[in-house]
């Protein structure tokens, strides 16, 4: 997909962004709505700068990200062994797969009111939502990845005298890793949606969702838009850089996926 860098594409992209900002600016200044509801660009920028300077945006972003990472870590610890087990053992697959298929189509946020009744509002419920949201893409990816390991590799490794541990560490794990990283990527996307929803509904102390929700009470569209920009920026950073780096450092280096041409 990636083409060479082109000044023309950059200029057009900049023109597109400028056009959106200009339309917004015209709309905001037209006086159709009060500036509290549609603040002009420079006031969004100055609010954003203020929120960065007084540390509220970074700190709340950190709180949100910590929830995402705790959730993803719990998810990883449960989903990876479960996925491997399901792929390696037919009995385990028959036991767990039906349960997963029943839970999979239920959106994580549908559980929030129930979780709030059971566990109260706050961090616990928000992290639980993240775990629920992130769990299914990961477990299905691990399951698929381990099943997709070339059987010849397994047989050759066994013939060459690999025991269960070596087989897993040297063959199954590296072979399944592209799938697992894809799963993590999907999981992060789901977790990111889940955490914002959880913060809106389960009202923990800090967090980006919490800022947006509070800003609504004060009709403060500037704060909401500034936070949205922050949410988008963090999303891109993770999608583009963090997972790309993870991929480069592992599967691409081992030559498991075609890196150079893609």
């Amino acid at each position: 997909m990636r083409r060479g860098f082109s000044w023309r594409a950059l200029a057009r992209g900049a023109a597109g962004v400028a056009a959106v900002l200009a339309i917004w600016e015209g709309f905001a200044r037209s006086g159709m709505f009060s500036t509290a509801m549609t603040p002009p660009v420079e006031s969004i920028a100055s609010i954003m700068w203020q929120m960065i300077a007084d540390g509220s945006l970074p700190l709340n972003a950190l709180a949100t990200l910590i929830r995402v990472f705790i959730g993803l870590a719990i998810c990883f610890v449960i989903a990876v062994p479960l996925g491997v087990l399901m792929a390696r053992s037919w009995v385990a697959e028959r036991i767990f797969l039906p349960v997963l298929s029943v839970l999979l189509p239920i959106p994580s946020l549908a559980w929030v009111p129930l979780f709030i009744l059971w566990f109260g509002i706050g961090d616990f419920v928000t992290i639980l939502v993240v775990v629920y949201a992130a769990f299914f893409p990961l477990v299905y990816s691990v399951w698929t990845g381990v099943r997709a390991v070339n059987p010849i590799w397994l047989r050759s490794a066994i013939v060459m005298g690999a025991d269960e541990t070596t087989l897993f560490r040297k063959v199954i794990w590296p072979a399944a890793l592209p799938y697992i990283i894809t799963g993590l990527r999907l999981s992060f996307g789901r977790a990111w949606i889940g955490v914002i929803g959880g913060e809106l509904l389960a009202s923990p102390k800090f967090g980006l969702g919490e800022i947006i929700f509070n800003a609504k009470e004060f009709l403060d569209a500037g704060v909401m838009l500034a936070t949205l920009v922050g949410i988008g920026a963090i999303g891109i950073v993770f999608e583009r850089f963090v997972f790309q780096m993870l991929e480069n450092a592992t599967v691409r280096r081992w030559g498991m996926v075609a890196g150079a041409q893609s």
Partner: protein
Amino acid sequence: MRRVIGIALPLMTFTVIAAAWQLLATYGGFPPKLVPGLGTIAETFLRLASNGVLAAAAVATLYRLGVGFLLAAVIGVLVGIAMGRRQWVEDTLLPIVTFLYPIPGLAYAPLFVLWFGLGDIPTMLLVGVSSCFTVIINTWKGVKAVKPIWLRSAEVMGAGNRDMFRRVVLPAALPYILVGLRLGLAQAWRILIAVEMLMSVQRGLGWMIFGAQTFLNTDVMLSTIALIGMIGILLERQVFARIERVTVVRWGMVAA
């Protein structure tokens, strides 16, 4: 033997889970309002199903889903095709789409309430906006992935712009577009349930869960969640599997 075990094992799992739940409800010492027994849940489900409450909520939710998703599908496919076919559209829109794509739709919800108020229309608008980016990106990738040799052959054989689009580009990109629509629908569905909790709409499945929380009606919540799961499965399995079967699978573009 293997087949018998294959059926017995899932049954066993569900029995164990059901038994554990029943034990927790009966002997766990939790208030029955919060952890109702299986009998109560089943009874509530049947009651709500037979007196039409669940059906009315489901219809309201599905109507919102339909309108919102239609919006996303139309905008998404049109923008995606324009981006795939014209380089300058791609260059102009790609940064904006890339930036907006990872923002969870739900994060816009309070802003939409501020701008458009509560109720149906903002809900549908939000569902449409938040699920259209998935459709845009997949459609764009699909149009980009059309084999250049097909385009050149069609050109050589004298296909005009219209024929080229209708006979070559659209069918070739369709598998991707359908994947985008399928993912978009799933996303719209998940977002909608949550948005209904925030937008205080008139009726709806998400609203029902949220409303039941106020009265500690755990049995109502669980019944609604069960229905949400069933509708989710139907949307995923029936709607798109069928569309795929009559188009791309029949044309031999993807394996069934």
